[in-house]
């Protein structure tokens, strides 16, 4: 009897969860469907769950002049790789000295990092420092430097490093190794899981970023993928103009709806395909980060 009732309850819960999952995925299915629909079909039936009039025109248009997208990908990949490397170098060194309890200034350093999580200057002063002092606008550094040290990620890294067995540092010292050598040769190899998780966070922050491009970039050759998408949405003519002048086509022939949604699919796609593979690390980092900090 008890068993039967709990089976029924299980079924109800699975049903509710399935509905929630469908609601979660539904908008994405529409997005993909529209990217494969003709404008005429959309005008007739509206946006539909399954394309009523299947076409690849949208993607063909996007890839006829693939330059902006290829540039976007290149910029995003470059920024993600450089930014993650820089972020990891800065965070791991800083987190290490915070985690070393025998370091005289470890507490002071922790406070120095932590205070920036409580209080910040906000957009206007940051903008002025970046553009007036560092002059990063319209350079690749404008997309990298502002995120190169995250106090949040550094604190997560510190949490990981505190769990390392520090006796190995002692024995390295006895063997005559300097602090720097100890860090590179001994600490970094054992901190690999922490570096992987925090690296994932940095990479995700850089890859999905549009904010820095919005603030500091106006040069077309430096527009990252996510921001390219925004420009396409707010001003479809940006790409279409390029095409119509290059290909000498009439603007009204351009399948604007499917181009728009196709761009979104191209920008969001890779992340969605990749994320199930590193989901586990992400969850682990999130739970650490959300509770402390």
């Amino acid at each position, binding site marked *: 009897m*008890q068993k039967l009732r*709990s089976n029924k*309850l299980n079924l109800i*819960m*699975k049903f*509710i*969860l399935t509905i929630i*999952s469908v609601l*979660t995925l539904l*908008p*994405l299915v*529409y*997005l993909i469907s*529209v990217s494969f629909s003709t404008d005429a079909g*959309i005008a007739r*039936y*509206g*946006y539909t769950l399954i394309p009523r009039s299947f076409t690849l025109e949208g993607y063909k248009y996007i890839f006829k002049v693939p330059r902006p997208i290829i540039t976007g990908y290149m910029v995003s990949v470059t920024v993600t790789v450089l930014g993650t490397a820089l972020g990891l*170098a*800065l965070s791991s*060194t*800083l987190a290490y*000295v915070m985690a070393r309890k025998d*370091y*005289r*200034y470890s507490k002071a350093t922790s406070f120095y990092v932590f205070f*920036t999580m409580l*209080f*910040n*200057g*906000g*957009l*206007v*002063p*940051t903008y*002025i*420092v970046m553009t*007036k002092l560092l002059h990063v606008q319209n350079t690749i550094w404008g997309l990298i430097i*502002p995120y190169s*040290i995250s*106090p949040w990620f*550094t604190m997560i890294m510190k949490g990981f490093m505190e769990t390392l067995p520090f006796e190995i540092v002692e024995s390295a010292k006895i063997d005559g190794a*300097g*602090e*720097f050598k100890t860090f590179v040769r001994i600490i970094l190899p054992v901190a690999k899981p922490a570096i992987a998780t925090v690296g994932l966070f940095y990479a995700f922050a850089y890859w999905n970023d*549009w904010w820095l491009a919005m*603030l500091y970039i106006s040069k077309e050759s430096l527009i990252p993928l*996510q*921001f390219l*998408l*925004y420009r396409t*949405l*707010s001003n479809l003519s940006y790409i279409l103009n390029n095409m119509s002048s290059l290909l000498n086509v009439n603007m009204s022939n351009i399948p604007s709806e499917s181009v728009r949604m196709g761009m*979104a699919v191209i*920008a969001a796609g890779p*992340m969605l395909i990749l*994320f199930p593979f590193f*989901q586990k690390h992400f969850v682990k980092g*999130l*739970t650490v980060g959300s509770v402390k900090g």
Partner: protein
Amino acid sequence: MNSISKELKEFKKNKDLFFIGLPGMLALFIVCYLPMFGLIIAFKRFNFDDGILGSPWAGLDNFKFFFTSQDAFRVTRNTLLLNGTFIILSFAAAVFVALMLNELNKRSVKVFQTVLFVPYFISWIVVGYLVYGFLSFDYGVINSILKGLNMAPVDWYSDPKYWPVILTASYLWKNVGYLTIIFYTGMLGIDASFYEAASIDGASKFQQAKAITIPLIKPLVILMLILSIGKIFYSDFGLFFFVPREVGALLPTTDVIDTYVYRSLRVIGDLGMASAAGFYQSIVGFLLVLGSNLFIRKVSKENAVF
């Protein structure tokens, strides 16, 4: 003199570690501390040629302009009401979904968990596209349904009164899954022997959830709730900027402090307004974070961040 030379000696002993930490400290100084000092521009009549130090002082003029405009009230109200709604609803929904996941076997959880996590990886720009797919006047899904029901289509992007609901739905869609996973992971840490003992005593699933899961997950939920309330003055810029598609008519219900500062700085170019609003956000935001942490310290000391 003696103490200085002693400190110097100590520094020499620690200098290797100091230099290892130095690059990160310098980077943090540039990225975070310099802008803090830059907050003084809220008291200046700033122009780009003279820079922060060279621009003339303006006293409290910028604040006068900001607080006597209707904007200050409007953006504060929107920020607090919308973020408050987001926090309450997303927490309630996430706890509910996590409780359900907790009752299922691991294999089916994995599928649901992956699906629920998907929106977290989608940028607000794409979400803006998705919402547009539903709300577009001519082709949108919602208007198609309305037409199918013989009802008049609605021009969603011109009437601000719908937007608190639309923004809330967008927020929940993107964030509930991620919050659910945090709570669910917390529930996984609960000792399985509690449940075994309870089911031997004949407790139903409901009773188990009420007597074991909820009380044990409560500290985590409350902790995260207070942390979120501490950050209530800061909004998710992308949501408020990309989902309403920058339609001016929607500003009465969609404009928050973050979007206001951005617009004043980059679109209108009114640096005085932007810096005054930004200063206001930094200070009140700081007080709220401090207050929420003091509160956590009172409730459970081991969870306090400082």
